[in-house]
């Protein structure tokens, strides 16, 4: 699977996320409090709301519509009303750029 240059590490504040669209897909890219980067599907698995407007708290992303929560490191659904895990994508950082391995 190809690694795609998604953004600069400076584009995302710590403990925050951005939306990144590639082809027909939309992703969410996260900057954890420890300085690591992660990527998940960009839409909530509950009702297709963009997660980019949500709130990152530690390692959780909260959906802006219904307050469902996922662990963005694993995609695990952590709080109702979300029940279905988020798809996660491998991420690597090289020379200040964030690359996502797009499936």
């Amino acid at each position: 699977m190809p690694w795609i240059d998604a953004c600069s590490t400076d584009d995302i504040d710590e403990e925050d996320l951005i939306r990144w669209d590639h082809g027909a897909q939309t992703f969410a890219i996260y900057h954890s409090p420890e300085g690591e980067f992660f990527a998940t599907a960009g839409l909530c698995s509950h009702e297709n709301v963009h997660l980019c407007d949500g709130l990152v708290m530690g390692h959780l992303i909260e959906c802006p519509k219904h307050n469902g929560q996922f662990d963005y490191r694993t995609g695990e659904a952590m709080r109702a009303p979300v029940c279905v895990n988020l798809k996660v994508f491998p991420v690597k950082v090289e020379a200040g750029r964030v690359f996502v391995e797009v499936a």
Partner: protein
Amino acid sequence: MSKRDYSLFGADAKRAVESGLTAAEWYHTEVPRKVMKDLMARSDRPAIRDTIILYGSMILFAGIGIALWPSWWSAPFWLAYGVLYGSASDSRWHECGHGTAFKTPWMNNWVYEIASFMIMRNSATWRWSHARHHSETYLVGRDPEIAVMRPPEVAKLILNFFGIIDVIKFFPNLIQNALSGPTAAEKTFVPQSDWGKVQKVGIICVAIYAVTLIAAISWGSILPLMVIGLPRMYGAWHHVMTGLLQHGGLADNVIDHRLNSRTVYMNPISRFIYWNMNYHVEHHMFPMVPYHALPRLHEVIKDDLPPPNRSIGEAFAEMWPAIKRQVLNEDYFIRRDLPPTAKPYREDFHQYVPGMMHPGDAE
């Protein structure tokens, strides 16, 4: 004039899906990300303070009520206790259900369970119905929490100021939940993974009410019911009053909360009981903003919203005549003007929806 079908299995439910209304993106005011992050930030402190005041006051008022029972001197204390039990529990159920009241999850969950019991809602069912209310606010046939269905049944609305309709609906539903889990309608919005939880909550609630009833019968006194159960009726008036204002008389089948929700400035006591849900347009537009940050959010986005009603009285003066007109003409609704600073309503979003007319067209 159209005839609305509020059944979750009905023709309007089907039309809302087929027309694309349920999948449409809702309007929201643009707020800079850093400002929104600040507004969304969670904190335990305000909710701990408010919860101590709430439960402390309830214990105090109920204690005095019990001490003075059966004298009429106990009445004011029961009235105060009742409003906290039968109305403040509505807002606590609501905010903790969103998970925004406290930063710490178990605190949200505990207050949510206690408040759900007091407001007589199955905690496992209503979490999901409220999710639908936010996805599809006042979409006919889709939103299971429409308080004023058209044409409004005014007598029922008035009876509910004393919780009568809610309580009459609650107990048969609760018993059904306890015996066999969610009802057919509830199964449309509660995922199967939670059906067992619905039944478990039903059994626990039935057990608590049974013990309370047995205590009342064996002591030959309604005092146990004054503490558990009845305050949902004699203290319901405040949450019904504020709840009707949330969407009453406004548009349905739209995807802009400025058209179907109402913000009302209220006195500090009502805002404590209601936990700032008087900022209702703001809450629906940004449900992840905690109750204690809603006044700040209001200041940030108010120029994009219709002017708020200045008081509960002013809001009722706007809403109640509209509800009465809807008795004869269910297509009638109030459409508030936006300030010049606001982005206009997207009329094209709303023209294809069955039953949606402008107020003037409906006369």
